[in-house]
């Protein structure tokens, strides 16, 4: 009995408490329901949409009507959005949160592809946690590390495993030079005495493929580690084994060079880019921020493509995100030269070191004429060159096939063309990918290797290039019949066009590399810090008077320092280690590490250098910047460099490729490339005395210089000269 009233009391107290609890729970549930991630995002999207609608209608409709329409949008109920893309046949709810995201491209319509076929994840989830479980490659399914599950999915019939090899672009890209960086690695390792040959043995990530030179497969191994890194398995991004080399070259590549290639992304700054296919095909704005409509993506955080959109019309500034170091040909093309680091003129009193990554400033010089006319990189460089053609190349110059003469012709040889027939499957397929109109029976240009240049077509007797970016037509000047390119020895069989047509080229003289032991720095391949912090200083930077030499094709070409490395390894307290101070690499198989290399400057102008600039200037001829004195006999020639050569441990001036007598001094990483030899120097210098009177390229004597030199010796000409020397007219 005594317990009953107690019970009653408890009950009476329990009801209101329970009731209150129930109400609280309901409120919590409502609030939580309302604050569900997808609702927050959808509301943000709707709000965004409403705002847009309002501002677009504001001026054309009466206010009340605008208000009505906008509130209709605002008031539409929030709901789970589902699609069932035919490719997977499974329900996806991704757009519930990501509503408003741009369609990735017309070739990848969301209605057919959905999201999961590329991105993976759990299509049924409506929370980040569940939906993003099993996402492939984070935000970027085109990253080369995961591409086998996405763009290159076996059996996916997408960009790999298809019938015709040229359709398997994902395979090609992985073998291409932008992914392997085999050339950079090979040249670096070769000139740092880490390997005995200048051809490629390693890639950024190991890859197998055919060699262009013969049958069979070749293998590039993954670039080694200099030393063991604690706690890191000796595996690369694909799980392939890594070796330990002990070579500083490998460490330097991983810390510096590896920041830019298709395997790695860069979040911030002027060089920000995605990895994989998106590295080129997803465009970035200047701040690397997202500008699109997906409400889940931040608008002011760097590291995002401009939109969720892939394109094949890639503008120059996208290419410049990577092609702004080393030869800097991307910058040069756009008329930008890396300046001397002062950041002047100041902006609001602050040095302006923003324009290029790594706090580098830029100076504007005359750009390449093609850039000036509005052409982009991809207007000259075709897919084979950019994405690779399935072969493994050692060097960029091997993968590139376009030449000036392909469009402009050579003296007596107009550019070659070809009429596209239905059996040209590759060309026609590419034209289709590039959204070009029906190309069958079109007459188009072809490269030396025979690849059709799809955007260069014959119209009547003219060659017309259509820019891939703006569809603008450019009539291509053909030089085969003009009077300007007739001088023997100056044709494209002997000289690269750029020898005369490039008036400036970036020249970075004297590179001092320091590696601090015991200090860590980010390894862009391991994506973590490892021992060895690098610092690099240069002696001076120039753009004037490009130097000439002979390139790997045996032609006269612009030659730049690249790289002239003096290496110092620092130990405790920043003190140089014995034997490793001011070291120049030398080794079997190559001369030394003070390297100059031929380059294609990409500063083409119709205006050419004056004859004297090459035929009489010691710097241009590779003798050096300084005082050249021609002796009575060739062996009495002398040269005094302006810069005391002590800063180069090998004792020659940075601009010098050869001695004033023609003995080679600089080394090179391009097999076959070299400075001018004595015979060539003589031939070139010997022209100088003719130039005062015969200094125009259309002077009749240059139709046959050999003959002219003989006639110069004849009494008639001798008398003329003698009269001149006496001061008579």
């Amino acid at each position, binding site marked *: 009995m005594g317990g009953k009233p107690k019970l009653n009391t408890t009950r009476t107290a329990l009801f209101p408490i329970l009731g209150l609890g129930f109400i609280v729970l309901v409120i919590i549930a409502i609030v939580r329901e309302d604050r569900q991630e997808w609702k927050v995002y959808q509301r943000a999207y709707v709000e965004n949409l409403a705002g847009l609608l309002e501002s677009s209608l504001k001026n054309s409709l009466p206010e009340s009507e605008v208000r009505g329409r906008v509130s209709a949008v605002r008031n539409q109920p929030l709901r789970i959005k589902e699609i069932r893309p035919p490719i997977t046949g499974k329900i996806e709810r991704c757009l519930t949160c990501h509503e408003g995201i741009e369609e990735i491209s017309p070739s990848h319509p969301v209605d057919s592809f959905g999201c999961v076929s590329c991105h993976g994840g759990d299509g049924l989830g409506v929370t980040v946690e569940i939906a993003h479980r099993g996402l492939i490659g984070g935000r970027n399914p085109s990253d080369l590390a995961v591409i086998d599950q996405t763009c290159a999915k076996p059996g996916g019939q997408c960009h790999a495993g298809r019938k015709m090899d040229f359709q398997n672009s994902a395979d090609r890209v992985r073998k291409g030079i932008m992914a392997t960086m085999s050339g950079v690695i090979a040249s670096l390792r070769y000139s740092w005495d880490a390997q005995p040959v200048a051809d490629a043995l390693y890639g950024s990530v190991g890859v197998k493929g055919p060699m262009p030179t013969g049958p069979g497969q070749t293998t590039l191994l993954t670039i080694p580690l200099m030393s063991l890194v604690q706690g890191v398995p000796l595996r690369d991004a694909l799980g392939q084994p890594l070796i330990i080399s002990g070579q500083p070259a490998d460490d330097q590549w991983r810390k510096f060079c590896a920041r830019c290639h298709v395997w790695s992304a860069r979040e911030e700054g002027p060089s920000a880019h995605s990895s994989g296919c998106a590295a080129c095909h997803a465009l970035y704005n200047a701040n690397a921020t997202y500008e699109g409509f997906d409400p889940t993506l931040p608008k002011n955080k760097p590291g995002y493509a401009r939109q969720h959109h892939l394109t094949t019309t890639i503008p120059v500034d996208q290419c410049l995100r990577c092609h702004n170091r080393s030869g800097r040909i991307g910058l040069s093309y756009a*008329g930008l030269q890396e*300046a*001397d*680091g*002062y*950041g*002047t*003129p*100041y*902006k*609001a*009193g*602050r*040095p302006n*070191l923003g324009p290029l990554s790594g*706090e580098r400033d830029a*100076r*504007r*010089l*005359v750009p390449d004429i093609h850039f000036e006319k509005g052409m982009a990189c991809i207007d000259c460089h075709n897919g084979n060159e950019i994405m690779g053609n399935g072969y493994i190349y050692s060097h960029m110059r091997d993968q590139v096939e376009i030449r000036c003469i392909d469009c402009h012709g050579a003296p007596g040889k107009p550019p070659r063309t070809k009429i596209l027939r239905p059996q040209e499957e590759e060309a026609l397929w590419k034209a289709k990918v590039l959204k070009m109109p029906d190309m069958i029976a079109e007459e188009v240009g072809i490269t030396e290797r025979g690849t059709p240049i799809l955007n260069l077509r014959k119209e009547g007797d003219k060659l017309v290039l259509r820019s891939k970016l703006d569809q603008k037509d450019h009539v291509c000047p053909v030089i085969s019949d003009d009077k300007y390119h007739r001088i023997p020895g100056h044709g494209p069989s002997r000289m690269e066009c750029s020898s005369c047509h490039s008036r*400036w080229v970036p020249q970075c003289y*004297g590179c*001092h590399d*320091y590696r601090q032991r015991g200090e860590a720095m980010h390894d862009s391949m391991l994506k973590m810090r490892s021992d060895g912090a690098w610092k690099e*200083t*240069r*002696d*001076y930077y120039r753009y*004037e008077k490009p130097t000439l030499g002979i390139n790997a094709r045996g032609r006269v070409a612009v030659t730049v320092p690249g790289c002239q490395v003096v290496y*110092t390894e620092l130990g405790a307290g920043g003190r*140089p280690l014995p034997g490793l101070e*001011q070291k120049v690499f030398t080794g079997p198989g190559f001369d030394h590490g003070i390297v100059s290399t031929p380059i294609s400057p990409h500063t083409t102008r*119709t*205006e050419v250098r004056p004859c004297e600039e090459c035929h*009489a200037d010691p710097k241009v001829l590779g003798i050096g910047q300084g*005082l*050249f004195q*021609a*002796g009575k*006999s060739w062996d009495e*020639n002398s040269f*005094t*460099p302006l*810069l*005391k050569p*002590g*800063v180069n441990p090998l004792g020659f001036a940075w601009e010098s490729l050869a001695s004033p007598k023609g003995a080679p001094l600089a080394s090179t990483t391009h097999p076959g490339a070299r400075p001018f030899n004595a015979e060539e*120097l*003589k031939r070139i*210098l*010997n022209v*100088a*005395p003719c130039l*005062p009177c015969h200094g125009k*390229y259309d002077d009749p004597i240059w139709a046959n210089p050999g003959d002219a*030199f003989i006639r*110069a*010796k004849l009494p008639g000409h001798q008398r003329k*000269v003698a009269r*001149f020397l006496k001061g008579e007219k």
Partner: protein
Amino acid sequence: MRRLSLAILAAACLLVTAAGVARASSCLTCHPGAGKMSESHPLSCVECHGGNPDDSTQTGAHEGMRANPSDMTNPAFACGRCHEDQARRVNRTLMSTMAGIISQTRFLLGAQKDVEARYAVREIDNLRMLHKGDDSGPLADDLLRRRCLRCHLGAVGNTGIQGAGRSGPTAAGCAACHVLNEKIGMAPDQRASQPPGARGMPSPHRLTTAVPTTQCLQCHNGNRVGADYAGLFERDHSLFYNFEASDPEIAPHLMKHSYHYLLPDIHQERGMHCIDCHPVEELMGEGRIHSQAQEQVGVRCQDCHGLPGKPPRTRRVEASDSRALRAAKANGRYGLQVGSNVIVTSGGHLLTNTVEKAGNFLLASKVDGKVHKIPVLGRELPGKEPLNHRIPGHMDKMECTACHAAWTYQDMGLHLVRQDSPDYEPWTWLTRQGDPQAREILETNLFKRREQWSPPSSRDWLTGFSKIGVWLGGYSMRRWEGRVLGLNSRGRVSAMRPHYQYWLSWVDTRGQAVLDSVIPQTGDGRQAVAWNPYAPHTVRPQTVDCWDCHGNTRALGLGQTLVRAKDGQTVGLGRSRDDGLGIDFDLDRVIDEKARPLQITSRTGAGFLTEEHLERMSARNPLYIRYLLEFFKGKEAWGDPAGFTGPKK
């Protein structure tokens, strides 16, 4: 107990000793190494330094003492008691007044209407003291006081910043030149090993008249005449361009700034020093106020080397040249005798270290006594001179350096910002400012966390007091290659240098840019983008090539241009407007094709090449071609056009 008694004993001994020292009244007790100042100065310490020799304590003995009795700005200036005349003269030289730098800078920055000297670092004769550096005066004066006037004979030294107060730890006054700091050399960063507190004390307490080039470089450094004589060219400021090596022979430093080693002047290479060419009248002055260095300097190349057919002008030394004779005796490294013939400079001064002997002209270095035989053009008979000296117009219309200078200083685009707010981050890579004070301010702050940054405060070199703000700067580009020619105030073709092409900014204490990369207006209303003629001290026996000037657009002042073959149209290589410079010409383009000036000169009587020059110096001028062919003659590399052997088959 034993210890205590020992201590008492020791104290007693000390007291007795101290008392003895005091009685001996000798400064040398504490300064045993001070030694005699020079043979000509057999003086007691007190005669120059003052102080109280009867006191044995440091404070007592040093009461009323002056560390540097040669400081002319000090009321207790001691040297003047004997050297009244020298002091009077030195006080009026440009090294003391800085009137040249002041008037040029003030004119270019629009603070005065012409370049005539009106101001000096202190009041003297008709020159007034430069306005106070407060913001009521022109900005130019603040720039001068806090950046430029660091180097002059009376600068406030011993700032505690190593290398500030003048460039180096040299003293003020007479001692600035005559007391050497032997630790200062071509690679003076070895000075870092000096014990702390050394603060620019002269290492030997000694006066000398054998002043070596290294001493002159304490002030005459940076990319200015002086440093070029030693082949020094300041490296670009950015840390990306600074080179570290333990060997000073390949990585020279001056005032902690690193330099390139370029080809030095042949005179330096042969062992000659600044004072071997520049006589005392040019260095210590003649007592007159000058506006520009060119007025104070009277020595010319031809004074020693003559002209074709004209040997150097000499004069017999008379007993009345007593000052010169006394100076020679005091120096002791060169002999000057009554009756001998010595060279006279164009300025009318004796080069007392030269002598004509049996038709030869000899020069003895005032620093090491080494005798040099002077190559004289006077023996070149008319018509037999070397080709370049025979060409009409070359000898009478050009400075020798127009051809003989191997390289020139071309610091294009001088960008200066007065930064009054603590915003150091953008200067992280640019702490090497070529100015020890600016560098110290940047480095000190950048070393700290941002929250601890203090507003910049820099010293006024005339008052020694600091105030808010610091002048920071940089360039558009610095080059040594090639040359740009113009006309100097003697009307001769001369090498030019950008001097200066100003872009000014000023950020106030709130961080607002009051001035944002503005080109100042000169006193006569033109853009202060200036090139001026100068005398590069990079002389080499071998000249540059004919085509380095003739037909060379850059040398002629047209800049680097591209010439279109079809129509002769020229295109500049640069794009200054797009670079944000606010001008439509390249920095090395001083005139247009019609020789109309695009930039200015601020030297009285100087100018750029004229249309007539452009025509005559064209590569197609028949007279030029005639001599050019002669130049090529007899040299295999140039195809030996006399024989026209042509290229070998």
